[in-house]
């Protein structure tokens, strides 16, 4: 398509150029021919004039001699006369012949000019006739000179002169006619050429306009083509970007889903283990307690049994936390509480216990938020997260920002952040620190039970697991964003419940 268009444009330009060239050449040739004719005709007339002048001289000389002879009448003087006359006639004859030669040369050149251009001599020009007239004129001139030389009677010379003048008139008339005809032809030719040039100019203008139109149309077409191409490319880029975003979003959701499934599997496994271990602990605790009662007060045996019992009870408490995590999403939430009040209470306790280097900046954007969590679970969650934030600051000064607002989840997105949540309204509790941040490879494991980066004895590795279990069970989700060296932000999403007074009273049993 593009190539064809280029070809058409090229052809139009070539045609334009050829026309201009052809027109210019034709105009030049026409003008040149006219010029040539003018230059040859004009000398021909001049030479004719010269010839006539010669004849007149001969005639007048003859006449003068004859008049002198008649006047003087002396025989002696007449001896010289023929010689003097003959000399003068010879001079004039040379002059005549010279003029004639040039006259002929001009005529032949004119004829050659016509014949050279491949045309024939126009009839009106009648070069042959002019040539014949010239011949007769020259012969008459020679005759006059002959008469003058032969000392012919004056009357005879005068008659010959009259005849010469008649012939001369004839030749001049012919030449004038030819000249006017040629002039006319030249004018016609010139007019035609002018007309041709005008036509040509019009054609060129027309072609130029056509060329401009074609080029304009072509430019418009080309611009459209380029625009379409650019649009298509832009569209493709946009599509690729959208795809990349979609893929990224899916990857994140799938990643989170996989992590969630992993946690569920882990929870089920831990539940199973806890069930067995709880059974194993039964005899440990029960029998150690029983034997301890039997052992004498203050005895070493009683002390040992107390240690066994205490260890059993410690193991029991640990399992209780593990079980809190294992209660993931399978059971319906039993408790509910008002988050804003719980948050304010926790924050007032936390403010009192926080190191002086840390500032707590709460921003609570809700008056009340009922969520499906027990107050104890909320307290545990808040203390776990605030505790982690404080630990992340590693003794440096800074801020811990706590944010609570309402967010709407649609199509798995909350404010553009992918979440593993049903559509609906959620309370979003954000806790952000300016601490050390969490490396990416660690981020994937932070909710796993017993996973901890804290020093031995500093943390159980269950805090976030318990939080995760509790939030999942409530039908919520946790999103963590962290940048090492900049800080970490936990966003906890909990489904918003209607306030208790708004809820329908349960039907009477």
């Amino acid at each position, binding site marked *: 398509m593009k190539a064809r268009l280029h070809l058409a444009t090229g052809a139009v330009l070539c045609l334009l150029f050829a026309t201009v060239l052809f027109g210019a050449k034709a105009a030049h040739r026409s003008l040149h021919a006219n010029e040539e004719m003018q230059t040859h005709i004009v000398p021909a007339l001049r030479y004719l004039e010269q010839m006539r002048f010669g004849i007149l001289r001969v005639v007048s000389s003859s006449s003068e001699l004859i008049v002198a002879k008649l006047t003087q009448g002396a025989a002696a003087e007449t001896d010289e006369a023929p010689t003097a006359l003959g000399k003068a006639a010879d001079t004039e004859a040379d002059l005549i012949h010279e003029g004639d030669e040039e006259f002929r040369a001009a005529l032949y050149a004119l004829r050659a000019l016509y014949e050279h251009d491949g045309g024939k001599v126009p009839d009106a020009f009648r070069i042959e006739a002019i040539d014949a007239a010239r011949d007769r004129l020259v012969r008459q001139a020679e005759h006059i000179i002959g008469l003058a030389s032969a000392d012919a009677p004056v009357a005879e010379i005068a008659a010959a002169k009259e005849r010469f003048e008649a012939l001369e008139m004839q030749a001049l008339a012919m030449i004038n006619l030819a000249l006017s005809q040629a002039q006319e032809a030249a004018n016609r030719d010139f007019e035609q050429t002018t007309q041709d040039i005008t036509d040509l100019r019009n054609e060129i203008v027309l072609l130029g306009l056509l060329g401009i139109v074609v080029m304009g149309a072509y430019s418009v077409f080309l611009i459209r083509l380029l625009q379409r191409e650019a649009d298509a490319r832009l569209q493709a880029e946009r599509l690729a970007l959208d795809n990349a975003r979609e893929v990224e979003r899916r990857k994140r959701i799938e990643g989170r889903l996989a992590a969630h499934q992993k946690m569920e599997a882990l929870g089920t496994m831990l539940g199973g283990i806890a069930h067995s271990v709880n*059974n194993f602990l039964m005899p*440990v605790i029960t*029998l150690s307690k029983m034997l301890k009662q039997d052992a004498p007060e203050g005895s070493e045996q009683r002390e040992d049994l107390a240690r066994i019992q205490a260890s059993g009870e410690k193991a029991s408490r640990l399992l209780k936390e593990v079980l809190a995590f294992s209660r993931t999403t399978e059971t319906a939430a039993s408790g509910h509480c008002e988050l804003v009040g719980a948050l304010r209470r926790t924050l007032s306790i936390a403010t009192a216990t926080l190191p002086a280097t840390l500032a707590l900046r709460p921003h609570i954007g809700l008056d009340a938020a009922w969520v499906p969590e027990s107050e104890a679970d909320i307290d545990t969650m808040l203390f776990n997260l605030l505790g982690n934030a404080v630990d992340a600051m590693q003794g440096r000064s800074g801020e811990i920002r706590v944010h609570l607002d309402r967010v709407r989840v649609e199509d798995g997105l909350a404010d553009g952040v992918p979440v593993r949540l049903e559509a609906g309204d959620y309370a979003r509790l954000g806790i952000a620190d300016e601490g050390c941040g969490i490396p990416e490879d660690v981020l994937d494991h932070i909710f796993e039970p017993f996973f901890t980066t804290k020093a031995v004895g500093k943390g159980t590795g269950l805090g976030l697991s318990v939080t995760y279990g509790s939030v999942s069970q409530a039908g919520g989700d946790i999103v963590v964003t962290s940048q090492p060296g900049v800080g970490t932000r936990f966003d906890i999403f909990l489904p918003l419940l209607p306030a208790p007074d708004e809820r329908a009273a349960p039907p009477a049993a």
Partner: protein
Amino acid sequence: MAKILLVDDDVDVRYALGKYLHRAGHQVVEATDGAQALSLMATEAFDLVITDIVMPEADGIELILDIGRNTPGLPVIAISGGGRLGRAEYLDMAQGLGATAGLAKPVDPDELLALIDRLLPR
């Protein structure tokens, strides 16, 4: 004191609790699952039943439902160490279905004794 039916598939749990209750003066009859407990109950009368919930054969839930149907008013203490669900969920469920009380494993034996004392008719 009281005649107690102790139902648990774990022999060590039965042994430890059985011994503790026995020392406290109770008569303890053991059963390994719900089915065995029901057949024992068909021939003997008990003052109180302590039953685990998750068991291989007929489980504690079935037993609780059966007791509710056949011997209403018989106190039942459910005990659970959890499983696919948490302990609290099992115990909530058991109480919802008719168990008188629920205790999480590992049970504090003194707490259990106190509970038994409370539940037994004076």
